[in-house]
């Protein structure tokens, strides 16, 4: 990826080359806020072997050519013509086979590259070549430099007027140009990244493998380089990219730890560091191992990862949904409603919590010791159920019960005014804000009252044809105390209506369809957009955008949040408004980028919620559930929550013991170790954990490195180099215990990954794909049952079910193989059939069964099995085994979406997802890209309709199916 700006262009272009030999040139269009593809193409060749050291893509500083080094021995040149368009590419033979780095040099008459390479004898040299566009050939360049530092593997081209190149080695840094050569020694370090500070290229930031950041200065007199200076600035995450932004602010991108935004200070701090960390950007990569746990035992999984490497190693706890941090709770049965009230309308904190029961109303308040105790408001009627409560203007409180509306002074707590329901009509539903009350009585009477100073005035009364099921007058206009509109949900005709206050004139009537009545309506506004939310009795939620002046509704959307009736309430957290939907699967509705998002709350069944912002529990919520009243604070409103536990060492393996609720983590101290060609000895250590201490009870030497351990039928299954070995846990005569080998199985190259199920053992070999072994109890032997004969280099395996096994390989593919039970011959049964293939584009380190979302065992989705995986780049993904019918449907949808959603730079999604390794490329099969399918929901209505037409399925139906899918993760 490289930015460049051709001559005469006002804007930079972005050049991208992919691992799959595609490239594109992109431009950002300000007006439409879209990416424009200027050029694209394929740069693959039939000859040549892909480079070992990674692809190199560079652009001449004067924008004459793009250079690509993709295959050993070839340098591809894409020239620009005068108009800045790309011409046809051509290859130039590069005789250096082991290329370490190539950069274009500045200030050259013809495009010139500097090539850092290693020769047969492992010595490293630098060479320059001019590219002759006319002859499509290299011309030996102006200078070269032999016998460099043996660790040299990074070139930094120095811009004009200095020109030349910096060669960063492990022990020296060399400046080299046609007429100058300067070198300085440095402390041994491996420089991973650099960033240029000044445009003239006299200062550079260098980040090394230990996370230290250095400043390199080229001292010069006019255009003559006089020397180099290097200075340690401080420590950051281990940098993989450094970008100097401006004003001493630097972005440090890291693939081993969190990326950081740092400021370089003029003066060192107390520890002698010039680096000040301004901000951190979470990076989970590389996820080396993880486990899925359900600590709260709620059916909601959390992922605990071993993330980062070296000094940036850490554990990360990744949780889906929003957590409630419980502060206090009381046992209270049968809560029917809750409202918080202030002692005066101007007060910042809530004082009272009104809790309504079926035949009484209790009032709780904070006392001096910050305890919640029961109190009384004299003016309130406490012998009946409260339907609604609210603070009102003029330091008043309003209470609505089934037969009256009471206005009470919040200071004296005395009744100031009262409105009685007409005899024979009981108030069924009511709502209020600071200055208005709207209530509905039996028979479809809708009554609108206004609150004055000690007065309650019935302003309007209308008779509707059906009973009212719910209503809302939450103010969404400029006045926080007064609403222009009222939303009313109706029985019988199942509609929601918008009335204008105070005249109660009907402006909009929206039929909801179906037979489920609306149970809760709410007017609210997010990010300046007004919405009407309408929750149904079956756990569905409809959302509309509301035009506040005309009362018109549009952009109807339907999602399913749970299965029980939902009650909607607004609350605010971190100065933003959100909506809490209380039901059997409580959720928070919030808005991001002008789009409504739904996030699960990690609680089971919530019947009622109200914000309760008291002095003792600031920013808290009162939550009624399962006979309990809880007060707690809510997490930041976002979908995934990540908590970091820094370790400072490289965590390699993690496992969780449920009984003791403990994690075991295996760490590596960061120390250089000599590479050993083959491990001939290993050990298995057995520890006992007693009172939080590890105690070694036995150890067993093995003939090779132990790559995997599994508990297996009460025994221990170990993968040791080429073999799988089963150990028994035996009691010796003297009472000590030991591991005793029982049986084994040979015939692997390196058995790296092992999973078991029953008596079956699935082995992922270093380079021989997946094999299935079976343990025979009677014979006490492990035998091979079947294998996949493809030469896949494995990186992880998992068992999906009895017959289907999942694997990830070295070339960033996923595949599934199936045991062949029906084969006619032994020979056929011994071969596993490849049933699915997919290019994931990530190096998967681990699969685990589990899920990040709450699983309701009775729901349809609860039956779908999911597997979570973690990758080197820090991605956590979910694989779900879909039923056949759903798969077929979604596959059709995916195909139509590919036509509608065009990839950036014209890159084809189909090609990208096709299985690919050194030997072959095949279309993806049995896998779908959930991200692509879910992007359906982000499409504009027009595009959605295009898709729906193509598929001959209603947009609503498509939305529903896709939303079902989103609930899997």
């Amino acid at each position, binding site marked *: 990826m490289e930015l460049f700006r051709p001559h005469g262009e006002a804007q930079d272009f972005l050049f991208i080359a992919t691992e799959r030999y595609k490239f594109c040139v992109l431009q950002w269009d300000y007006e439409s806020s879209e990416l424009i593809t200027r050029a694209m193409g394929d740069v693959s060749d*039939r000859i040549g072997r892909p480079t070992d050291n990674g692809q190199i893509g560079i652009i001449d500083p004067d924008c004459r050519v793009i250079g690509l080094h993709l295959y050993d021995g070839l340098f591809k040149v894409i020239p620009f013509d005068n108009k800045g368009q790309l011409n046809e590419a051509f290859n130039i033979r590069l005789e250096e086979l082991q290329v370490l780095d190539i950069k274009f040099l500045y200030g050259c008459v013809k495009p010139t590259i500097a090539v850092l390479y290693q020769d047969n004898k492992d010595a490293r040299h630098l060479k320059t070549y001019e590219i002759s566009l006319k002859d499509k050939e290299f011309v030996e360049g*102006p200078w070269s430099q032999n016998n460099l530092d043996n660790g040299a593997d990074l070139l930094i081209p120095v811009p004009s007027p200095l020109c030349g190149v910096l060669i960063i080695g492990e022990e020296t840094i060399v400046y080299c140009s046609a*007429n100058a050569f300067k070198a300085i020694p440095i402390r041994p370090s491996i420089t991973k990244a650099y960033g240029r500070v000044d445009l003239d290229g006299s200062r550079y930031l260098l980040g090394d493998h230990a996370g230290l950041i250095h400043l390199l200065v080229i001292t010069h007199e006019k255009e003559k380089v006089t020397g180099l200076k290097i200075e340690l600035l401080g420590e950051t995450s281990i940098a993989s990219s450094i970008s100097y932004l401006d004003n001493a602010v630097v972005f440090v991108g890291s693939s081993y730890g969190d990326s950081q935004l740092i400021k370089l200070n003029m003066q060192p701090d107390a520890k002698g560091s010039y680096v000040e960390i301004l901000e951190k950007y979470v990076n989970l990569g590389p996820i080396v191992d993880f486990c899925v746990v359900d600590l709260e035992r709620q059916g909601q999984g959390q992922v605990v990862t071993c993330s980062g490497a070296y000094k940036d190693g850490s554990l990360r706890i990744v949780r889906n949904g929003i957590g409630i941090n419980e502060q206090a709770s009381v046992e209270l049965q049968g809560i029917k409603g809750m409202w918080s009230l202030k002692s005066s309308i101007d007060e910042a904190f809530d004082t009272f919590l009104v809790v309504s029961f079926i035949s009484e109303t209790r009032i709780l308040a904070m006392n001096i010791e910050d305890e919640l105790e029961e109190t009384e408001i004299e003016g309130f009627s406490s012998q009946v159920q409260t339907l609604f409560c609210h603070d009102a203007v003029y330091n008043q409180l309003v209470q609505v019960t089934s037969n009256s509306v009471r206005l009470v002074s919040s200071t004296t707590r005395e009744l100031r005014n009262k409105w009685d329901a007409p005899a024979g009509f009981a108030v069924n539903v009511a709502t209020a804000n600071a200055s208005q009350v709207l209530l509905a009585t039996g028979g479809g009477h809708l009554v609108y009252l206004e609150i004055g100073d000690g007065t309650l005035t019935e302003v309007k009364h209308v008779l509707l044809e059906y009973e009212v099921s719910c209503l809302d007058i939450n103010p969404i206009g400029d006045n926080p105390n007064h609403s222009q509109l009222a939303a009313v949900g109706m029985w019988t005709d199942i509609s929601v209506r918008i009335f204008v206050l105070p005249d109660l004139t009907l402006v909009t009537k929206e039929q909801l369809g179906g037979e489920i009545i609306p149970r809760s309506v709410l007017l609210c506004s997010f990010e300046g957009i007004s919405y009407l939310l309408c929750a149904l009795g079956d756990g569905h939620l409809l959302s509309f955008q509301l035009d506040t002046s005309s009362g018109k509704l549009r952009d109807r959307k339907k999602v399913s949040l749970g299965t029980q009736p939902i009650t909607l309430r607004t609350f605010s957290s971190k100065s933003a408004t959100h909506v809490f939907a209380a039901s059997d699967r409580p959720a928070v509705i919030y808005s991001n980028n002008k789009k409504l998002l739904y996030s699960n709350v990690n609680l089971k069944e919530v019947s009622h919620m109200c914000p309760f912002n008291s002095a003792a529990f600031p920013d808290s919520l009162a939550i009624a559930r399962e006979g309990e009243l809880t007060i707690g604070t809510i997490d930041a409103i976002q979908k995934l929550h990540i908590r970091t536990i820094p370790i400072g060492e490289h965590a390699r393996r993690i496992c969780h013991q449920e009984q003791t609720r403990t994690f075991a983590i295996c760490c590596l101290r960061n120390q250089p170790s000599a590479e050993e060609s083959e491990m001939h000895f290993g050990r298995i250590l057995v520890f006992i954990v007693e009172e939080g201490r590890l105690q070694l009870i036995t150890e067993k030497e093995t003939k090779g490195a132990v790559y995997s351990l599994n508990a297996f039928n009460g025994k221990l299954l170990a993968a040791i180099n080429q073999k799988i070995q089963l150990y028994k846990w035996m009691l010796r005569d003297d009472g000590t215990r030991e591991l005793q080998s029982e049986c084994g199985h040979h015939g692997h190259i390196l058995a790296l990954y092992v999973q078991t199920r029953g008596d079956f053992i699935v082995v992922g070999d270093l380079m021989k794909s997946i094999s299935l072994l079976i343990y025979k109890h009677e014979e006490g032997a492990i035998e091979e049952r079947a294998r996949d004969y493809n030469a896949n280099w494995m990186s992880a395996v998992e068992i999906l079910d009895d017959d289907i096994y999942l694997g990830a390989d070295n070339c960033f593919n996923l595949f599934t193989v199936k045991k062949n039970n029906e084969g006619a011959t032994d020979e056929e049964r011994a071969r596993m059939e490849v049933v699915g293939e997919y290019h994931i584009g990530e190096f998967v380190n681990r699969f685990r069964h589990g899920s990040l979302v709450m699983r309701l065992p009775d729901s349809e989705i609860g039956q779908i099995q999911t597997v979570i995986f973690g990758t080197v780049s820090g991605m956590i993904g979910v694989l779900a085994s879909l039923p056949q019918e759903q798969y077929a449907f979604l596959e059709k949808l995916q195909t139509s979406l590919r036509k509608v959603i065009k990839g950036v730079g014209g890159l084809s999604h189909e090609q990208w997802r096709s299985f690919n390794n050194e030997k072959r490329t095949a279309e993806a099969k049995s896998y779908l890209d959930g991200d692509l399918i879910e992007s359906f929901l982000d499409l504009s209505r027009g595009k959605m309709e295009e898709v729906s037409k193509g598929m001959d399925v209603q947009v609503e139906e498509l939305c529903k199916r896709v939303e079902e899918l989103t609930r899997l993760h």
Partner: protein
Amino acid sequence: MWQAIKDRETGRVRSNSFANRFKSRRVSSLQLSNRKDFVSPHRGSVNSLQVDLTEGRYLLSGATDGSAAVFDVQRATDYEASGLIAKHKCIFTVDKQHEHGHKFAISSAVWYPIDTGLFVTGSYDQFIKVWDTNTAQAVVDFKMPGKVYRTAMSSMAMSHTLIAAGTEDVQVRLCDIASGAFSHTLSGHRDGVMSVEWSTSSEWILYTGGCDGAIRFWDIRRAGCFRVLDQSQTQLGVRPPVLKPPEVSSKSSSAAKSSFGGQNRLKTLQNKQTGSQSIKGSSSAKASVEKSRQKKLHPGMLSTLDRATAHYGVVTGLKATNNGMYLLSAGSDSRIRLWDIESGCNTLLNFETGRIQTNKAIQLDTSDDPALVFVPCMKTVKGFGMWSGRTTLMLRGHYESVNTCCFNSNDQELYTSGADRQILVWSPEGSMEDEMVQDEVAEDKDNWSD
């Protein structure tokens, strides 16, 4: 390995370089396998070996007794020595007794590259036969004008099904399986053709090596051969050294003048003369080169060029590297030469071959990288470093001279066969064998001590 796997896990080592490193380590530890055996049904010198290109599962062999056999390299038919040694018996053979069998020696047996349903044999009885693998019946045959030395099919071919055949005759014939007739006759060689090899980068390019010592390149879409390799055409000086165009800025010209730059250049030139790896290629986009060559060479190739030789004596083997950039040739002058295909230059790499069989076609192979070249050198098989020419592997096991090397890149195994009628398996050294024996002993001990 432990360390490497850790580095791969954290993304410090790129996964493909991890794999390549491990593969080359395995290849460099090849030794005679004591775990895997092919039971050769042949009663004569085995002249040809090939593993199928689709699955990498079936090994096809052809022998002097007129028989061809197919083996499964993955699944053993039975085991010996309590399961330690896997015996691979052939799945089937076709020999002289077969109704369509060849009457004389089979010199060449190759798989149909698209699937394993067909294979092709060429014999001294002047026939090339195409066999249906499943029924073991000959489905097509071609009568050639002389003994067939070598047949080849293009692994790249998407639009043709041609068998290139080198025979006693001076002409190379292309036999079309689809039509059952000769589609091309390529004239140019002045003697029989011992070796034929298709390009690994284009389905239209064919290389042939003759008894006249010439290696010819053909583009079968056009008439005539477009290049004859010349052993004396080396690459020195092909790429112009420091170029000083008149418009060069003062700065860079001063650079060129400075003794510093000059010295360095001298050094690199010397390096080249000592014949290290450096391979100078004049090159550019393939198509354009071909075009320009065509212009230069066609029609009526210069007679001096046309008479150029690649070897003194017979060209006995050809092998194009799978990256498509180099061609290896073996000659009865006991030399292996490495050619840059793009430029047609001899790289002058000196392979320490010793003697090579002179009277018979031999089969070379390379490892994946391609870092190693396997060459039958009389009774031994030598592995040479592709870029150094140095012998890195000496595989001794055959009792008589070796004819063929066939590298199985799936398992990093080498199969060789020779006049001793054996097919030997050379597999990467695992500590597996010793470890296993030790283990067994250890396990026994454990049981006793209990």
